[in-house]
């Protein structure tokens, strides 16, 4: 079964100067895979994700989710946003239950699932807290729980850890992998962090700068569960240096100018 099937997807933003955001994107994501979409800021990778989510319409080509053409948000997807999008006036538990309320599903079963998710993400003791009482990392964990509460077949994540500090980000990567190994659904994870993309994914899809084109699709063959220290292994290094070479050849990394730029794109 193919979870996401994109064929020559094109996306143009109309306007006085119409811009091409996605150019000829073709990609097949099989069920149950973790796929990272990696590219520089503004390359259209988030636009691609939003097209899959049915939040934006593609201009031409075909885009199918679970076998049917995307027209508005597909059923049974979960989405995690860069800023957690939690509702401040609801406790963590009530935030997580929001999709259940919206979809009018039985709450008793969902509460069991919620407790399990809270435990899995280490939030068990924070269920009755309000988002403002939590750290950025905890908030994003709650948002992940919310996206998973209705056991979606497809989980879309739009730079979910982009606003977190480096240490928290590492921690979240480890936890996301653990959660995903429990859930084993299809994940499309958009990021501009090279190391994060490789660490998490079965497949890394590399986008060029705008207009977004797929430059390369890399299979990541590293055994799971992966420890953070996997990032120091030569195999991991081979993947990341290859990606960095690609970015270099696209003029995105210039080592003569500053090393800081390379660091920040991690």
């Amino acid at each position, binding site marked *: 079964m193919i979870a996401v099937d994109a064929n020559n997807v094109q996306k143009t933003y109309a306007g006085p100067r119409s811009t091409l955001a996605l150019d000829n994107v073709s990609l097949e994501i099989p069920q149950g895979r973790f796929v990272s979409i990696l590219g520089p800021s503004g390359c259209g990778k988030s636009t691609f994700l939003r097209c899959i989510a049915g939040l934006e319409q593609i201009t031409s080509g075909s885009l199918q989710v679970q076998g049917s053409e995307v027209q508005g948000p597909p059923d049974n997807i979960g*989405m995690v946003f860069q800023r957690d999008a939690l509702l401040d006036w609801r406790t963590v538990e009530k935030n997580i239950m929001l999709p259940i309320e*919206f979809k009018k599903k039985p709450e008793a079963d969902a509460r069991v699932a919620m407790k399990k998710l809270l435990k899995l993400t280490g939030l068990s003791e924070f269920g009755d807290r309000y988002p403002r009482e939590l750290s950025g990392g905890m908030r994003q964990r709650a948002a992940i729980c919310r996206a998973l509460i209705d056991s979606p077949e497809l989980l879309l994540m739009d730079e979910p850890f982009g606003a977190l500090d480096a240490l928290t980000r590492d921690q979240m990567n480890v936890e996301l992998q653990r959660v995903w190994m429990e859930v084993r659904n299809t994940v499309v994870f958009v990021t501009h962090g090279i190391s994060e993309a490789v660490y998490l994914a079965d497949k890394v899809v590399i986008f060029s700068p705008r207009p977004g084109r797929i430059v390369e699709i890399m299979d990541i063959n590293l055994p799971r569960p992966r420890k953070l220290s996997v990032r120091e292994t030569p195999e991991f290094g081979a993947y990341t240096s290859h990606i960095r070479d690609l970015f270099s050849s696209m003029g995105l990394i210039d080592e003569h100018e500053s090393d800081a730029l390379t660091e920040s794109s991690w």
Partner: protein
Amino acid sequence: MKSVFLSRRLLTGIASFLVLMAAWEVSIKAFGIRPIMLPAPSSILAEFRTDSSWYLGNAWYTLLTTLAGFALSVIFGVLIAVLLVSVKWFENTVYPLIVSFNSVPKVAIAPLFVVWLGTGPEPKIAISFLIAVFAIIVDAVHGLRSVPADVMDLGRVLKGSRWDFFFKVRLPCALPSILTGMKVSISLALVGAIVGEFVASQRGLGYIILSAQGSFDTPRVFAALFLLGGMGMALFTMLEWIERRVTHWRHIA
């Protein structure tokens, strides 16, 4: 902790009020100002004591008018705001009318309401409502439009009903703004009630002020003004209290 803070605020408030009253009292005596120009606080208090139940009865009447005008302005203000943000043509056609109507001084049209609605409480409530409602509309529109883009997207992905999205996301999101509007509008509702009583009334604090001023009974004017000030402060404090209760999640760390 919080109650200590509140009572300290109350104490400093009372203290500064007493200091002001003392300074006022002393200056009246020192400069020999005649009561008809500006009465001393002691004579205002004495005036109030001559018939405190009459004063309180009239204050009660004004309070009811104010609350009625305020309640109407909250109900209709929020309803109008909801229509403005959710129905495109309503925004295009009605919003400019509301803005231009708000520029007309309500005091100037107050006499018309007596013609239309008589001399009972209705015209006072209507004027109070008209003066107070605009603040609610403006803040409620602002609040309803302040739903973050991410949260709007979340709503679309979850595919809930419009009804659910409105009551579970949009309205709670707008609530802090609506409460801000309510704090402004409660004072305006009080102003409106007084304006209404100025135009035609045999009751209320506005009536006392107008009739006492006609007979140069300045202490009586001031007694009514003090009641009015106290009432405004009490109403505002009540709303602040409600605000803290309803949006308690905003005041966490």
